[in-house]
């Protein structure tokens, strides 16, 4: 891996403080991290280590107190709310522990959502959402609502939604946290396939066996990078 490798995420001295009453809690205390295109990274750490804060910052849902963050060459750490919304829309695909699908909308419509905010025409949306559902093997569940799907199917809809805008990174927060082990490995299978197709994946998890699917494991402890292990070349 040379310096010329496409760095997709570059964090420098990333700090995030929270005011808890009179006290200030430092969730992240200056994290430096580079993630290259097509890496498959697991971020681990015990609770309170700063995983979630890291996830929110990397996902552009939050802005750092100090430090800088470049995503795909763009400095996002100084962006306004609306600019961040645009970055979330185009560059980031979220997969959440609780799936976070709109309960009243069909799979198809859920997958179309990011495209709506990207201003894609209705016809293109339908086609692209259908393709995304096909990629996760749910083409036949397009018109089902979340409560008509199993947990694994729901999570695959969420993955399709995350991928539909062809984002730079797929950001997963405990993606298997609400799934049984069989379904979990099914989802990990999907992640593995996506990674082989060239997708950059960042996954926050506290389960070592899930993290084992990644090719690089970054461990946080007390708001700092504790270890950073590359299992094998991506």
């Amino acid at each position, binding site marked *: 891996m040379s310096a010329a490798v496409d760095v997709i995420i570059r964090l420098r001295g990333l700090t995030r403080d929270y005011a808890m009453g009179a006290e200030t809690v430092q969730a992240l205390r200056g994290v430096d991290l580079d993630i290259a295109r097509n890496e498959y990274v697991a971020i681990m750490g015990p609770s309170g280590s700063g995983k979630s804060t890291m996830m*929110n910052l990397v*996902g552009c*849902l*939050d802005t750092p107190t100090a430090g800088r963050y470049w995503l795909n060459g763009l400095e996002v750490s100084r962006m306004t*709310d*609306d600019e961040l*919304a*645009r970055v*979330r*829309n*185009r560059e980031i695909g*979220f997969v*959440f522990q609780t799936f*976070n*699908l*709109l309960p*009243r909308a069909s799979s198809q419509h859920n997958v179309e*959502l*990011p495209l*709506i*905010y*990207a*201003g894609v025409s*209705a016809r293109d949306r339908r086609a692209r959402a259908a393709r995304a559902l096909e990629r996760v093997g749910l083409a036949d569940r397009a018109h089902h609502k979340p409560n008509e799907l199993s947990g694994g199917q729901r999570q695959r809809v969420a993955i399709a*939604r995350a991928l539909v*805008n062809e984002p730079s990174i797929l950001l997963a927060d405990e993606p298997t946290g609400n799934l049984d082990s069989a379904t979990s490995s099914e989802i990990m299978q999907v992640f593995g396939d996506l990674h082989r197709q060239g997708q950059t994946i960042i996954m926050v998890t506290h389960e070592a066996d899930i993290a084992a699917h990644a090719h690089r494991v970054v461990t946080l402890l007390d708001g700092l990078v504790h270890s950073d292990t590359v299992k094998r070349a991506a």
Partner: protein
Amino acid sequence: MQFLEAIRLALQTIWAQKMKTAFAVIGVFIAVTFLIAVVSIVQGMNAYMTDRFAGTLLGVNTFHLRRFPNFQTGEITDSTWRSWMRRPRIRYADAEAVEAAITVPHLSAWESGNRATIEYRGKVARDIDVTAATERYFEIRNLPIALGRPFSAQEVRAGTPVAVIGWELADRLFEGRDPLGREIKIHDIPYRVIGVVEKQGNLFGISLDKFVVTTAFAPAKRFVNPPGVVDALIIKTGSLPELRAAITEAEAAMRTRRHLRPTEGNNFAIETADAVLDFWGKINRVLMIALPGLVSISLVVGGIVIMNIMLMAVSERTREIGIRKSLGARRRDILSQFLVESATIATVGAAVGVATGLAAAALIDATTPLPAAVAPWSIAVGVALGAGVGMIAGIYPASRASRLDPIAAIRHET
């Protein structure tokens, strides 16, 4: 997010939350229904009063000289009533003197009327207007004869017991047989039917086709007024200036005959359609001033209901807002989503209100004597007001929604 997309989403949400939407809709619905119904009735009344009421009952460019006004507008106190009852009656001599005093071209007729029971071979029609009039009556009151003929001046002078009857009365008594030449009985005195007046329709639901007009000095007269007394002298002129001149002359003539001093008021009434229309104009103005107030009160209430329901919707859908934000919805996307939703709810309410208002107007028109005519502008105003109120009521909840922190929103448990 495109506008149509927002409306589609709003309609989906509305469909999914029918109950809540129904409550929100009611607020605007009441206001708009009220607006449409009241405006329709007022407009209908307007057209009615000017076209029919004044023209039919009093006549255009016509005045009536009476002991006291036939159409009492406003409240009549007991003392007014007593003073009216003390007034001298209009006598034949008065009527003749006034007719002689009027120099402008005019038609005149005498009229006395009461209600009576009409009989024809055992069939009975109760509560029928019986008018004893002179021959010009039909011309002045614009009552064309459909069948037969009006009575002549000779018949009037002779007191011939002949009658011209209304269409509905003819139908009821004779059931399709030729009414001409048949004898009807009023107070047991026979009258020969010589004419039937064209169908007049109804006024405030009261049929205008149930009447008998007989000659001014026919026996029926006895049951109406003391000898030598007439209810009204009707004068019809060709134009409004002539009407004014005729009124001035008639008033002067009457005051002279009654020996009224300049400080004394008239002890007789000169009644024109204007007086009735003036009164209606006043009611109309009051209604039109009160209407915006009443409508805006219900719109404000509707707006508050919508605002509360939208606030509830925002807090219930916090998670949805978080999800949308995480997927790239900007503040203005969320803002417009909720604004469009509340505007759509309100517009649906307004549309239902318009429909109900129209139905109410039609129902009132059909089942009560009150006429109703829908004003197109009131529909436009109703829908615009509804949508406007929805927008305004939606601003605060929508801006709350748009400012939610996506991280907190997405973790929000409902």
